[in-house]
């Protein structure tokens, strides 16, 4: 072999050695990164596992047991019992009805108010503060206010009687009950949703809007073709939060009307709260799992919609 060939061979070997060392170093660095990553993530992960997944598994287990004290496996008996229970069905329908009406209304109204405040009107910050105030009011005060207004001998009935000579309406024990709760829900959550939309509107690149204007796009076209796309992730987030808050309205309803309210206000949480009070944990667990599955489907749909409509927005 000639000298030059030997030298080339040596060079090749050296190169291979260097590459090998580089790969080893790269692997070590990666391992270090994983280690740091895991160390930072572990407390949260442990918390989620311990306080979320583990209870969920225990809930699942209880839903297949005869009761919390009798661990006999009963298959899907508890689910059948819950799904065929008229009270559960009524509660589900009421909860769904409320969510279907309240959530879109909360989104649309909040968006409209945000657009209004973003249009450069005077006193914007004052209006924003006013609209945020309901968030800070304690639940007990809200309940008291609503009782004063909407009880049978309350302020609203007084106004209706004196101004319009309308007979008293039992707001919380009639078909109007859901309207009252809807008003309470909107009143309470409007400010928070509005603030989220305001922030999202401020994040829309001005040059995109300007160039659309220059291209001759009108305000409606600009809103639906450009702003809505940029707002899609916020709408998604506000939708999820409103959906969650629509379930939390049970708290106020319970304080207003007790364990067994008028049937239009009887929500899933009433059913489960009463099951909890009666220590019927297997019924409670089955109901909760069913509700969980429905929520997963709804949220999954929202994720899908968000991915479809918001996916073309450049990050």
């Amino acid at each position, binding site marked *: 072999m000639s000298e030059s060939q030997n030298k080339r061979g040596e060079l090749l070997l050296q190169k291979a050695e260097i590459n090998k060392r580089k790969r080893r170093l790269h692997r070590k660095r990666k391992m270090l990164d*994983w280690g740091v*990553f895991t160390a930072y993530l572990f407390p949260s992960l442990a918390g989620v*596992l311990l306080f979320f*997944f*583990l209870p969920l*598994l*225990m809930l*699942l*287990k209880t839903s*297949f*047991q*005869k*009761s*919390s*004290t*009798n*661990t*006999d*496996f009963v298959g899907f008996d508890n689910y059948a019992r819950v799904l065929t*229970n*008229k*009270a559960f069905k*009524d509660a589900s329908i009421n909860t769904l009805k409320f969510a279907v009406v309240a959530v879109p209304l909360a989104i649309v109204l909040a968006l409209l108010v945000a657009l209004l405040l973003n249009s450069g009107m005077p006193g914007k910050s004052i209006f924003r503060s006013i609209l945020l105030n309901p968030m800070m009011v304690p639940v007990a005060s809200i309940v008291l206010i609503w009782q004063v207004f909407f009880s*049978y*001998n309350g302020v609203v009935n007084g106004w209706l009687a004196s101004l319009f000579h309308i007979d*008293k309406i*039992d707001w919380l*024990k009639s078909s109007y009950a859901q309207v009252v709760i809807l008003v309470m829900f909107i009143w309470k959550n409007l400010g928070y949703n509005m603030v989220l939309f305001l922030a999202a509107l401020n994040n829309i690149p001005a040059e995109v809007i300007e160039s659309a204007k220059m291209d001759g796009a009108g305000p409606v076209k600009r809103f639906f073709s450009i702003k809505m796309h940029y707002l899609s992730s916020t709408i998604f987030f506000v939708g999820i939060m409103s959906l969650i808050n629509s379930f939390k309205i049970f708290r106020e309803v319970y304080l207003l009307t*007790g*364990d*067994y*309210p*008028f*049937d239009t206000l*009887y929500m899933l949480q009433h*059913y489960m709260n*009463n*099951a909890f*009070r*009666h*220590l*019927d944990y297997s019924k409670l667990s089955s109901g909760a799992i069913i509700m969980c599955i429905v929520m997963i489907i709804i949220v999954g749909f929202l994720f899908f919609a968000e991915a479809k409509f918001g996916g073309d927005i450049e990050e």
Partner: protein
Amino acid sequence: MQYFKKIAACTMAATMLFGMGMMFSGCGSKSEKAEVIQKDDLWFNTKKVKLQSDYDMSEYLLVQHNTPLSVGDKYAILYLGQKNMTKDMMNDKDFDYNTLMLNDVIIYDKEGNIEKKIDINSQIAEEGKVSNITAITPSGDRLCVYYVSGDPNGIGENTNYIAFLNVESGKIEEKKEADIPNSDIVNNVKNIDGYDVITCVNYSDGNTSFSLRFAKDGKIVSSTDFDKDIGKGQILYVEDVYSAGNGKYVANCYGEKGTISVEIDAESGSSSKLDSEAKSEATKKKHSTFDGTEYVMDEDGIRKVNGDKEEDFIPFDNCNVNIGEASNGQLVSVTEDSAIIICESQASMNYLEDNPVIVYELTRASENPNAGKKVIKVAAGSGELSNAEAEGIRVFNDTNKDYFAKLVTYDIEDVDTETEDSDELLANGEKVQASLANQLAVDLMSGDGPDVLIGASSLGELLNDEYLEDLTTYIGGDNGLDLAQYYSNVIDACKTDGKLYFMPNTFDMYGVLCDTKNFDASQVGFTFDQYDEFVKNDCNGEEPYTLKGSKMAFFKECMEATNDSWIKDGKANFDSEEFRNLATFFKENIPDGITSTDEEIYYGIDMSDKKAGVIAQVGCLSNLTSYNYFGADCKLMGLPSSDGRGPSAMIYSSTSISAKSNVKDGAWELVKTLASEDILKYEAAWSIPINIAAEKESIESYMKYNDKVVDMYKEMGMPMSDDNLAESGLLPKDSGIPEAYENMIGTVSGVLTSDKSISAIVTEEVQAYFAGQKDLDTVIDTIQNRAQTVIEERK
């Protein structure tokens, strides 16, 4: 990054799968077998000794005994009473009343035989004075006798004395004035945990005040000064005193503003107020000290106190005592392997003889004689057993060869009584009951609950097949009951949809007590129109219930009396004629009544102000002497209802069998025992037993005593009109009232019971109708709507 994501996802999935596997592996079948007693299970043999005097009650107006004591290896009981008085005695100015007084100390041996009877009176009496013995307490081998001596006509000062009685010789060895000022009269003395606790009353300056003194061997150790420690005039009356251990005592007192509990240091006499929680803790257990070791006793048994901990010493499940008697008794002796409890017999008041004192001698056994018996778990829905129930369990355990009943305790929270509204007070009580019903419901459904439940009658939510057995099959079976021996109309009234979920043991009757001459023989109750006429015409417009109660409470009771009308075929039935009639009747005819607990209501009967009708709860013959203006013409009518049904039963004691019990045969035997004549005699003086023979015996005994007292009154020349006798709680001889009373029992046709959740909804909604704010249709719609939700939810 992708690689890390994969690793993280796999780890999460593996964790969840592992977790699920662990969780589901916990599912398993529950053991179906009942607990069986083993040979080496702890047991204390129980010897029950009765200490009963031999006084001929025909010679005595009254004989009572004081707290029994243990003195050495003997028992000593002070008997107080009075012999019958004659007219000649009353008319004799020089008559010595001391000769009438019974002040004996009877000494019993360990077997309950009378060793000697010591006449104290003759040894301490002073000429021209009358001596009243308050109590005796142990003082080594002697007895310390506390007595008060004074003028028989009540003129001049009374003097407090202490004397020492030698038990062996039966002689008073020493007499001296007590170190207690004569202005403080000794009212009561009890030996509690080593100290003589002396309650004194002071009547000076027109005021009555109480104080406590602590003594040992007749020497005063300390005195309380409530004015200084609690506040001037705060303590008006001392009801009872308990030992709290470590030389501390708790006194339950009454003040101007209600009950006050006070903790007292026996050595110093200093006292301080206790909050309600501390008081509740202190009075639940009885403290005693033996050889420097402190013991506590309550319904669970005897425990040794070791610092902050209490160790089981003799659980009452491991011996056979009447738990009611024992837990209210006194621990008088404790060794490593034995204990002696002295208690009062809880047997029903027998008017013709002195109730015996019971001594339980408990001795540790080498093996459990009940080995092989299956355990029946018994729970009391009210948190405690009645006299009859406790005795029934004791007798069952003594006699049944196959089963042994053990008591399971359910903690029941205290009712919040801090309210001045009677309706709110009622609601608070119902909340506590509902909470207990929930606990029991879950346990019964899971099979972990008691086998036998006492008191399920008041827990309406439990009365269905999911929780309790239908007893009609047992009653009619081979091992059933002879219904001819029982008030079967009451048993039938207790059925729900044709099923009997509890066997009633004792009950009271509830209704309107009226003059039978005003009604047809066939009328047993009131329809709404009839009641309206009765109030307007016979009662002069004064509705009887709302003179002492509220409209809402009356409405609830009328609803409870017709409870079978409100839920039919698993549906709420408020949109019905019955409910409309009920609600309309109350709105238009019943006044608001008394709602405040603060209002002074005179619960007694003013015989000069006769009413045409009185709301009456009749549980025994003596109740009729309190309520009865009508003599033998009395009749108990049912509360107003759509169908004019008869009076209702308020079930006091009942027994049920869990639907999930593994020892149903044994449980039924226990039910039969608790409903038997011998056991129900324990309750017959206070409540009507379901067993006819037990009730008849009670009536006979009461009338014999009644006749004896009437004869004595006659002999003494006292006024004898029916009204005069009624004021003294007596019936005329050969009165037709006992027959009328028995006839009343035969007309009982319903039971006062309700579903608490639905009852709460109805009373919440109907108030707006009564106030005229809403029309009836609207209210009924709402009630129907909400009540149906309750029913649907439970399915």
